[in-house]
């Protein structure tokens, strides 16, 4: 149906001749924007609905009395569902540690939460296809789970700032019971909030994509940062760490890099470095982690991202 609309808009309404570059660029633009907006509304709504059943305060209860690996997997998966702005990092961390969630499990959550979320998934899906979106989620989960397990093994509990263990967490406020209608209303409002924030970025990203799509892709980046350059992934990650952006903001950049010939593995590694390891988050985490644990965290996640980048460049 969207294809029909795009065909009608470009060929009939604007009377553009088929096959010309400008026509194809406009067609791509008219087709992609509604497609991504539609995906965005549907998926964000579904995730927001799910989320009404699991508020942040309940998550820590879910993560205590189980087998260690199961907890890591669960923590990483819950990280996807939970929107997590860096300002919530400290209360989340303290809340988890205080209620006895093991340190490694807490880290699985801290890694997955900013790196993978439903908005990033929708955007990757819309711009690169379902395969890339699923790869991103799968690989992100894997990094989060493995990093958590490694941090558990390293027994670094003493490198958490001492005051964290002394804080007394008050009883969580009781949730007012929600009716199904309340959940729908709240989720819908959340969709509106996200949509207003993300929609302009999508338009920018797609505009860049449409432009490059229509006007033959230059292989500028492929020449310098292609598969045969062994340092490309490393450099992409090192550039990505000090850059700070949420997934929405980085997508247009990622789209442009990929379209200019950056290999997929390098592109994904860059995106993960930007969203998963950001400078402001480090500064905030430093308030609860001693330097050694913070450095370990950066090291483990960074190496994970590097491996993913090289692996995808090699396999795909």
């Amino acid at each position: 149906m969207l294809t029909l609309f795009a065909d009608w808009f470009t060929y009939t309404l604007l009377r553009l001749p088929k096959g010309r570059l400008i026509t194809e660029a406009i067609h791509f633009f008219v087709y992609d924007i509604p497609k991504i907006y539609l995906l965005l509304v549907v998926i964000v709504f579904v995730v927001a609905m799910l989320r009404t059943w699991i508020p942040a305060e309940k998550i820590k209860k879910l993560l205590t009395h189980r087998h260690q690996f199961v907890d890591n997997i669960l923590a990483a998966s819950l990280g996807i569902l939970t929107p997590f702005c860096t300002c919530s990092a400290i209360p989340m961390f303290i809340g988890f540690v205080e209620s006895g969630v093991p340190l490694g499990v807490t880290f699985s959550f801290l890694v997955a939460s900013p790196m993978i979320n439903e908005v990033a998934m929708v955007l990757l899906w819309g711009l690169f296809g379902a395969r890339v979106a699923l790869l991103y989620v799968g690989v992100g989960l894997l990094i989060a789970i493995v990093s958590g397990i490694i941090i558990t093994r390293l027994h670094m509990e003493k490198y958490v700032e001492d005051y964290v263990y002394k804080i007394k967490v008050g009883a969580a406020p009781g949730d007012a019971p929600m009716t199904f209608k309340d959940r729908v209303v709240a989720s819908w409002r959340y969709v509106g909030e996200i949509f207003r924030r993300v929609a302009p970025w999508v338009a920018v990203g797609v505009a860049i994509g449409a432009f490059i799509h229509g006007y033959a892709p230059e292989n500028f980046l492929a020449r310098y940062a292609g598969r045969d350059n062994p340092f490309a992934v490393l450099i992409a990650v090192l550039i990505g760490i000090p850059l700070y952006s949420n997934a929405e903001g980085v997508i247009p950049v990622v789209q442009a890099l990929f379209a200019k010939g950056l290999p997929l593995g390098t592109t994904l590694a860059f995106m993960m470095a930007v969203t998963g390891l950001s400078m402001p988050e480090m500064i905030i985490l430093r308030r609860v982690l001693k330097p050694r644990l913070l450095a370990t965290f950066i090291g483990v996640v960074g190496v994970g991202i590097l491996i993913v980048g090289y692996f995808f460049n090699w396999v795909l």
Partner: protein
Amino acid sequence: MRIEILGSGCTRCHGLEANIRKALEILGKDAEVVDVTDMQQIMAYGVMAMPALVIDGKVVSVGRVLSPEEAKKAIVGASA
């Protein structure tokens, strides 16, 4: 009335504070608005998502930037 905004000074927390002040202005109500950034105090309320809104010692909303309209309702609801 004492209104506390729990947060770590992020933009969303400032957004909530601005909307609260707007709502108070619309209502023509006087209240003490305090920014709470001390972790010990924040954690004492048991909330984990920022920003959170506390009116007269009671947690009213968690992890959301209320619109001025919603803030108005929350303030009216709390004073009733």
